Structure formats: C-alpha cells, structure tokens
C-alpha cells in the first residue's frame, strides 16, 4: 500500500516528512507552485498523491494554488499548499477568504531570506508576523512551527487536525534548514496517529443553518454535493451564509470566528519545555534555532548556569499562558531569532515589566549557532 511509510526507519528531509504527515492526516489534494526551498513538497506530492487516490495539481501561480485548495476543501478533500515568502505574500488575499468562509486547509511556508526575492536558498524566520497579520482585516489564524524532521511529520498532522476541528486555515512555518535537513526518523503506525475530521451536519438539509453559532463557535460544515445547498462568500455574512450589512450580524459573525480560536486556546497552544523548572534564565525559541538553543542550554548547564528553554510550536495564537508563569519567575529571557525580532516583540508585549527580555538576531542567512546562544546565555 502506497499510503503510509511507517514501521521502518527512513532518512527524510523535513519537506518529505511534511508530505508524509499530510498523507497520514488524510490530505488528498495539493495545489502548488514551485519555489525554493519548498519545492520538494510539491514534487513529493506529485509522486505520492495519485497513488493514494488523491490529486496533485501545479497551478499557474500561488494565488491560484490557494484558490484551488479552498475549492477542494469545500468539495470535501483535506487540502494543502506549500510555498515560501514570495508565494506566501501572494496568497494573503485568499488566506483571508479561508478565514472568513471558515474553510479548513493547511498552508506551509518554508521560510527563506526576505524581503522580496531576498535570499532564496538561505534560512530565515522573517515571516512570523506576516503569518499572523499578512492579510487585510482583523482575522483569526493558527500558526504552528517545526524544528525537526519528526516534528515536520507530527505537527503537519496536528495542523490538519486543528484546521478541521476549528474550520480555519492553519499555517505551518518551516525554514530552509528544517526543510532540507535529512534525518533518520521512524514514522508512527497509523493506529498511533490521531486524525480529526471536520464535523458534518447531520440534520436534514432544510434545518441546516451553515454559519449558526454553537458552544464551540464552529458550525458543522457541509460538503458541496452532499445535499446541503448553501452559499459561501468572502463577504461578511449572516448565519445562512448570505451577505449582510447589519451591524448586529456583522458583530456576531466576526466575534464568533475570533472566539472559536481564543476560547479553545489550551487545545491549540503547544510548547515544549526543557530544564525550565529550576531555570534562572530561559531561552524562548522556535524552528531551526530551537535546535541550536537546545544544545546551548545543555552546554550552559554543564557550565553551571541554570538555563532552560521553551520551544514554541504554536506561534499564533501567541502562547501567552504558557510563558507568563515563567516570565514572572526568571531573571532574564533570551529570544534568538533569524529576523530582526518578531517573537521577541510578542514576549515583550506580554511581559509588562516582569523580567528582562533580550533579543538576539541574525539576518545574514546563517543559522544561529549553539555557541552564539551560549555566549549570550553566560552573560545574561
């Protein structure tokens, strides 16, 4: 069977592991446009999807790719696209559509140096804020990040699950280092993997109110062709899906699509802690840099510094609750990033004077090394 390559050890690139994760999560549609350093995801999808009865299509550009992904999701297929900065910028308008029409889908952005064509073959973490704020209008979004090949698999599965559960686009941020590092991993067996599917309506079609609120804030989603004929639009709409300009309906709708993310905060945020309990200084980190940080923290401990680290897997909604208790406690926080300081801004925002936040940035296309972090840690 061509479906899952679990059971035996494999040497996989991060990009390949994302493909495996997507297939394991039930992804059966991929539309994309090649771009370094995300291209391998397209190429692997072109090879693997038809064999599992899915569909791969290379579209004329990234705008079209995300359009097709949203269409396919509405027609019932778990869908994904993958790109890097320039393509991600082009996708912004349709990301907003997926938000407002509440269409589950996964968008992978393998970050490379920017802005513009920038540094096509070099890693970066320059798109963290863009992932949250890139499209116009105030919109809810879930953004996850990965730092190892294994995570590329696991978090891709998670991305699909969250996307289906909350009817929202989920953005997965990888970077050139994670994408192209080949690592030995062993994929879990299908039965070990939790796969979540969207809730579909089970009432008779006449009773279906496609955008009706409920406690979860996530209405069941009918699939085109299943007998629930309804209207999907990028305009702000009423509970039946039709455009509205009534202030009360606008407010109810926009509040709900925000609420569905924020009220489920604890289900969505994921962080990983290492040596945090007794730490006096901590590193807050994500993506490839987290691997350097891990080594640095261990080295620092060896040298007697009580260092710890928190790796952010969920970047948005920003995992405030997971960080706050530690900010209250530690002497200082270091936030190393391959940008001019994006997550560090957020840490400062929630910090409100509790501790000292130091940023540490590299924007020259090179991965921050363990040594660099160590040096800073020792001085904190």
């Amino acid at each position, binding site marked *: *069977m*061509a*479906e*899952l*390559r679990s059971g035996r050890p494999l040497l996989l690139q991060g990009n390949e592991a994302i493909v495996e994760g997507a297939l394991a999560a039930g992804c*059966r*549609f991929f*539309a994309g446009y090649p771009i370094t350093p995300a291209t391998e995801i397209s190429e692997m999808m072109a*090879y*693997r999807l*038809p*064999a599992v*009865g899915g*569909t791969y*299509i290379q*579209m*004329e*550009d990234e*705008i*079209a*790719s*995300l*359009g*097709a*992904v*949203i*269409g*396919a*999701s*509405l*027609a*019932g*297929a778990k*869908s994904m696209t993958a790109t890097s900065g320039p393509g991600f910028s082009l996708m912004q*308008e*349709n990301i907003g*559509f997926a938000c407002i029409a509440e269409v589950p889908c996964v968008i992978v952005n393998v970050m490379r140096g920017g802005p513009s064509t920038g540094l096509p073959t070099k890693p970066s973490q320059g798109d963290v804020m863009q992932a949250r704020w890139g499209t116009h209008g105030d919109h809810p979004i879930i953004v996850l990040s990965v730092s190892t090949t294994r995570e590329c698999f696991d978090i891709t599965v998670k991305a699909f699950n969250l996307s289906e559960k909350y009817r929202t686009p989920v953005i997965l941020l990888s970077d050139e280092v994670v994408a192209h590092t080949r690592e030995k991993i062993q994929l879990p067996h299908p039965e070990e993997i939790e796969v979540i599917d969207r809730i579909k309506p089970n009432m008779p079609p006449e009773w279906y109110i496609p955008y009706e609120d409920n406690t979860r804030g996530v209405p069941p989603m009918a*699939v*085109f*062709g*299943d*007998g629930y*004929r*309804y*209207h*999907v*639009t*990028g*305009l702000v709409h009423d509970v039946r899906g*039709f*455009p509205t300009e009534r202030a009360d309906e606008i407010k109810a709708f926009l509040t709900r699509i925000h609420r569905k993310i924020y009220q489920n905060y604890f289900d969505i945020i994921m962080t990983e802690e290492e040596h945090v309990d007794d730490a006096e200084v901590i590193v807050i980190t994500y993506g490839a840099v987290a691997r350097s940080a891990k080594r640095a923290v261990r080295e620092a401990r060896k040298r007697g510094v009580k260092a710890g680290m928190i790796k952010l897997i969920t970047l948005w909604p920003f995992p405030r609750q997971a960080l706050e208790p530690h900010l209250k406690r530690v002497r200082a926080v270091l936030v190393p990033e391959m940008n001019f300081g994006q997550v560090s801004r957020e840490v400062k925002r929630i910090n409100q004077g509790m501790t000292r936040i130091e940023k540490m940035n590299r924007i020259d296309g090179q991965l921050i090394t363990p040594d660099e972090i160590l040096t800073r840690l020792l001085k904190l």
Partner: protein
Amino acid sequence: MAELTKLIHKYLRHAKKFPHVWCPGCGNGILLGSLIRAIDRTGFEKDDIVLVSGIGCSSRLPVYVDFNTLHTTHGRALTFATGVKLANPRLQVIVVMGDGDATSIGGNHFIHAARRNLNLTAIIVNNNIYGMTGGQYSPTTPYGSYSTTSPFGHIEHPFAIAELAVTAGASFVARGTVYHTNLLDELIEKAIYKRGFSVVEVISNCHTQFGRKNKMGGPIEMLKWMKETAVRVEKAEKLTEEELKDKFTIGILVDRELPVFTMEYEKIRQEAKKKVSA
C-alpha cells in the same frame, strides 16, 4: 412559457433574495433566466451543481440560485472551481464572471483553465465595463469609449474574449447576448454538457455605467444594439470583412474534442498505484 413560475420555485432563492440588487433592466437578470432554463434542460440535480463566481455585479448571481454556491475573490473564481472539480469530479461546476473579473484581474486563470481543459463551464458576462465599482474601463471597453477612468476617451484595445479562449485551448467556445435568449439558453446548455473547458461569452448591457456614458442609451436601446450588431457565425462566414465591421458574431466558435484533465488524471492514478510503494 409560464414555465417561469415553476423555474423560479425550483431554482431561485426567491423567498428571501428578490427583488435582486441589479439595476432596472440589467442584463444580469436576463442571463440568470437563461442560466436556470439551460440547467433545467440538462436535467442535472441541484445538489450536483456548484455555481462559482468572482466579484462584480454579475458575480452576485450565485446568491439568487439554490445550488451549492460559492462567491470567491475578485478574479479567482476559476481557481476555486478547479479545486472543487478536482476534489469531486462528479459535480457540475459552472463559473459566472464579469468581463473585468474574468479577463482583467482573472485573465491568467482564464487562459490557464482553457489550456488545462478541465471540465468546467465559464460564463462571462461582458458588459464592457466594471459595473460594480462604478464604471471604470475594463479589458473589453472599446477603443474611444468613455468611462470614469478614461474621461478623455479610451486608448486601449479590447480583448476578444471568446477568441482568446479559443487560442488558449478551450474545448467549446461560444458567444451570445442577453437579447438572443433562445440562442443563449441553447449555448449554455451545450456548454454545460460539453466535456472539457467550455466558455460562453455573454454580451450584456450595463446601461448604468457604460451605456449612458457612451450615448448608447438605456436597457432598451442597448438590447436593440445587440439585436442589430450581432451576426450569427454561420452567416458571418459568408460576409466580407467590410460588412462585418463594427459587428460581432454570435453562436458556437469552436467545439472540439480534447483529452479532459480529470479523465487523464485518473490514468495517472492507475499508473501511480502500480509504481509507487510507500
């Protein structure tokens, strides 16, 4: 006749959404009538029809009909439609776009959809103007016309939408007008039946934003203009270039058999299943 009441009941979201938002006399309403008649004739189930549109006056159409309806972003309707069709090839996907939507911002998706020959039906309401945003020139605004962004006369040349679709590779290409409704019903019906990418360019009137500014009058005068200016392709073949000056042709421009994407992809799946092991 009087089928109308039946059709209204069957296909329109009549109880809530009418009267519709279009201006008095707008061709979009006439097209909507042709569309539901044509669909009715094809016999497809409402549940199996997905009506997709972009943004514009004409793209408001899906709100009014009781199918699976999808009102996308400006210019992108065909890309969404591509995803719908590929994820469930059983669905009949019809895409309604304005001239601006389909050939200005969406021009690339249009020629690529034609090239790719996915089994979709594109209906392009060509009113020679951006209606919804208040009358700016579109890629089909004639040379010399006035619009709010060509206050001194337009200096660009219009696309021939149907001809562009032919060159780009569509399987079926036709042009009709909202004056010639019987023909239009028939063209749309054929287009939906066609396996492969089919296009119907519908010449329509936006008197509010185009007609009045260009001394073409209101809806009545513009319908008369269509009547007088359209020439059947069959007849046009017999006319000289001189005789055809300032005329446009209506009817079927091309109807050809080409391999269809979804069927070809099914072959790929079979082959991949043989070759790819996990």
